[in-house]
């Protein structure tokens, strides 16, 4: 996983609430057995006017000129802003894979769905929760200026835009994993003996759960 601390980038405004993971990456693209290559199909049904299938040459498809990712001023963006309950629905990790493959490293919204929120951290994407008023403020700024950029500092838990600074909350464990790009399986396996000891005692207390019953 690629670490993230300070990230400066162009902001892409997606002015919708309840953006679900089916919209972020439609089901036909979940058939891949890889983690990469989803970027061209990010938001496929909103981004293109025709139906997309895996393996297609996307450069030949009809794009929806009104969709934000197709508007030239946002095409190099790496910070996505959206409305409430971003990433709701399916647990598919293909959603953060698609965002990352497109080049998104930070998503900012007033709230996120739990599974998506956790999945972002596992893939080097920082999801940030800000209150609705600050979000409205940033949306207005982005609309007014072409190439509007903001800077996110994870270590300091701050966002800098124009002359303003806002703080954000983040779980300390998730933060340290993202700062260092840590593989959390490796971290957990450092506690291998604890897990083994726990498991032994646990199965003594609840012998019907040791999986040998069948």
């Amino acid at each position, binding site marked *: 996983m690629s670490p993230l601390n300070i990230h400066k980038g162009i902001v892409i405004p997606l002015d*919708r*609430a*309840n953006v*679900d993971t*089916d*919209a972020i990456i*439609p*089901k*036909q693209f*979940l*058939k*891949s*057995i*890889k*983690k990469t290559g989803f970027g061209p199909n990010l938001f496929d*049904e909103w981004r293109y006017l025709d*139906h997309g299938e*895996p*393996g297609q040459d996307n450069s030949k498809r009809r794009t929806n000129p009104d969709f934000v990712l197709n508007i030239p001023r946002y095409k190099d963006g790496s910070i996505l802003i959206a*409305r*409430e*309950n971003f990433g*709701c*629905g*399916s*647990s*598919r*990790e293909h959603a*953060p894979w698609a965002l990352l493959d497109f080049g998104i490293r930070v998503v900012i919204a007033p*709230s996120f*769905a*739990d*599974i998506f929120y*956790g*999945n972002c951290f*596992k*893939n080097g994407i920082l999801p940030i929760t800000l209150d609705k008023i600050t979000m409205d403020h940033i949306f207005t700024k982005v609309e007014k200026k072409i190439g509007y950029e903001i800077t996110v500092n994870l270590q300091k838990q701050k966002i800098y835009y124009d002359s303003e600074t806002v703080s954000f909350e983040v*779980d*300390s*464990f998730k933060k340290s994993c993202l700062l260092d790009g840590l593989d*959390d*399986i490796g971290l*957990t*396996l450092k*506690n291998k003996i*604890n*897990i083994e000891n*726990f*498991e032994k005692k*646990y199965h003594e*207390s*609840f*012998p*019907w*759960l*040791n*999986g*040998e*019953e*069948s």
Partner: protein
Amino acid sequence: MGISLYEKVFNRHVVQKDENTYLLYIDRHLVHEVTSPQAFEGIRISNRNIWRKNSIIAVPDHNVPTTDRTVKIKDPISRIQVETLDKNCEEFDLLQFKMNDRRQGIVHVVGPEQGSTLPGMTIVCGDSHTSTHGAFGAIAMGIGTSEVEHVLTTQCLIVNKFKTMRVKVNGDLQYGVTAKDVALEIIGKIGTAGGTGHAIEFTGTSIQSLSMEGRMTLCNMAIEAGSRVGLIGVDDKTIEYIEDKPLAPKGDLWEKAKKDWVTLVSDEDARFDSEIEIDGSLIEPQVTWGTSPEMVVSITSKVPNPANFSDKTLSSSYQTALKYMNLKPETPINEISIDKVFIGSCTNSRIEDLRAAASIVGTKKIAKNIKLALVVPGSGLVKHQAEAEGLDKVFRNAGFEWREPGCSMCLAMNADKLEPGERCASTSNRNFEGRQGQGGRTHLVSPQMAAAAAIYGKFVDIREIN
């Protein structure tokens, strides 16, 4: 101060606590073909091992065709995914119910019917509807693929403790009102983000009156209220359901287990971070009109008018939804006609659901305007049971198609899907844009309401028929 069911189950699984995060031991890991290939690949690359093979049950469900399975899967990409699961299960020596096994089906139907879902367990699966298994007094939650790999290799998950929410539903449910309607009513009330960050426990006399199938339907939809975990305390029905299931404990272990399981209820004085109360006797059959499960009204209502809402974000999302659904504000729900009907999914494809739908169908035929009405049983065993009861004949005689088990048109990863513009009465769980096929329009309902919609070609109040 007493503690809640969620905390009871959580506490017995804590391996260690580090600041705000817990290393939580996982009892059961269910695996399907869509969210596991990258996890197995990760294990191969890092040269790690699977921690406890006998905690794992794998079954292909999302991509499998619901038609003739004696031939190979037509779609080459779907086929590769199903074959990849076969290969991974062989290589790592895992129990799998393969596509042509009689026990194959939707992972959340198969788990409980095999007795692999037990009270007090922690259960995970790379699928958000894992909350289903909470009906047994277990902590069951959907995880991403990175977490699938984490559980495969460490038997643990790194988690934060959820807040707790109690949703109390009291009163006798009216005739024709099901667990699905209770779920949709709750989601309509608290919204699709209402349960975010919370484990929801469902309690009250309406919940107690539900069968285990109904409780699974309700917990299944907890995720549509934003909650990764939905759960219900153990009672006699829970224990009765599990007894004699293939993987359930037997003999002495069964007796020991039962003694433990009856303690798996919230203490009377348990405190919850939030509480909601709903009068179950007032719930009517529900129909969603929009593109989020919270966009729901009762069959006696009309499609809402966005102009009546002052909140700008809400009003604009209502407008977007109505445009996508091709509905005019204030259209009575019982005037909406439909093109297709889908009875199935991990929400509503168990034997009780099929019996209920068949009882509405009786000797009637589907309406002329219905292009396709599908019944997709949740598992091979459900299908077999339904056939033994003659339900397949009821459906077939009426004009329904009777299919092989799988996720099917709930998410349309296989060949079963809506065409652009088609409108469907569906017993599944998500009415998102494009969920059942690009441009398709989904209305979520109970199995009875779906069956009635097939007969009348439009939504009808099942309390007023028969």
